């Protein structure tokens, strides 16, 4: 199941040129970019691991793409996303966020039902990927 989230969730995955163009747009707005990765695809997992610090003072998107590629090299089987923060509100505000890499195979989710008191049923989403230990969830990738 293809996981979608962020700004361009309804589009096919962006190519490197399109990623560069979007990063260029973000930098033109004065939004610093940062790269994050995770192998826990649950939609409520908003805290992805940071790939280095947010990149301040960049003027050209080549540097952003460079870090994305470095992260892809280190985590070929993880989800990687690009964030652009708009700091002008004085608090952490994500202005743009999209996935730039996803694992080759995404096993998807199952719905778990839990019987609780009074015949009530609670539902929860369980990503199949989470059955395996962290770092080992998407095959060959670390």
């Amino acid at each position: 199941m293809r996981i979608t989230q962020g700004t361009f969730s309804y589009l096919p995955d962006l190519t490197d040129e399109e990623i560069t163009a979007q990063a260029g747009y973000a930098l033109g707005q004065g939004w610093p970019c940062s790269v994050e990765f995770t192998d826990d695809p649950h939609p409520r997992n908003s805290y992805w691991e940071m790939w280095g610090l947010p990149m301040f003072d960049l003027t050209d998107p080549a540097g952003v793409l460079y870090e994305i590629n470095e992260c892809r090299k280190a985590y070929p089987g993880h989800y990687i996303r690009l964030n652009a923060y708009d700091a002008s509100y004085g608090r952490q505000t994500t202005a743009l966020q999209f996935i730039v890499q996803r694992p080759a195979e995404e096993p998807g989710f199952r719905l778990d039902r839990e019987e609780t008191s009074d015949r009530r049923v609670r539902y929860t989403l369980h990503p199949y990927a989470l059955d395996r230990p962290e770092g080992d969830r998407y095959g060959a990738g670390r």
Partner: protein
Amino acid sequence: MSERPGFGMRQNGSPAAAPTPPPAAGEPFTPGAEPLPPGAEPLPPGARVDLARERADSQVDGVLDALDRELVGLAPVKTRIREIAALLLVDRVRARFGIDSGRPNLHMCFTGGPGTGKTSVALRLAELLHRLGYVRRGHLVSVTRDDLVGQYVGHTAPKTKEVLKRAMGGVLFIDEAYYLYRAENERDYGQEAIEILLQVMENQRDDLVVVLAGYKDRMDSFFASNPGMSSRIAHHIDFPDYEPDELEAIGHLMMDREGYGLAPETEPVFRDYLSRRRAQPRFANARSVRNAIERARLRHANRLLARGGDVGREDLTTLHPEDFLASRVFG
């Protein structure tokens, strides 16, 4: 939903989630710097291109003229910059015919005494390369050893990479680059910075131009101990020291810019000052001229205040011989 911008979930079609943001205002962003837009047909082999027109379109003459006008002397430097500009211009035209000539290597090394205009030329170079479409942004990031080399293990690589990322799309100017390599300490982190630098200079030639600068003799020994660096730099440009009359012209340029002038009787004194100062140790060419003028301004202001009374435009802008004669150079 609240009207706070940027927070909370957005309905489809809400303005904050515009699907394809338009290019930033001002400079339109173009990925890559190819003069040939994708999909455009190359010119037929028999076509003719007007080079003069091409030259005017690139507005490169503005930068070259400014270089000539605002920088005195430096003939070998200007020649080389003109050659580079010509090469890039011709390459652009070649690309329109569909001839792929590869991207020329433009990493450079500026050597020369202090105050010979290395930084000023680098600044103009960045602007020039931008107009010719070689770099995308044309900004200059000027750094020294401190900005590249970390203080503990594992600190150097991220630091160097951050600087390189900041410089991408423009020119990275490394002042006194020989400090990166410390021969006396083989565990010095400078070596690590050099390695990363070399890697990026080689692999990301499209993204940035690296300019190393420093004094001639020390740069030579730096290159002797880092042969990889020397061979990756195509242009070694030497900045000659200024001649006395060039220094005088520089002084006049600086004073013009700051709204000062020399009284006629001050001219020989200024010339004399420069020739004396030039013979002294630690003479830093244009920088010393600037400092001399700064000090003359101090004395000029002090003289006006001490004299009292009312002053006119003439008094406020004219430097007199005593403003220079008080210098210890004449002592």
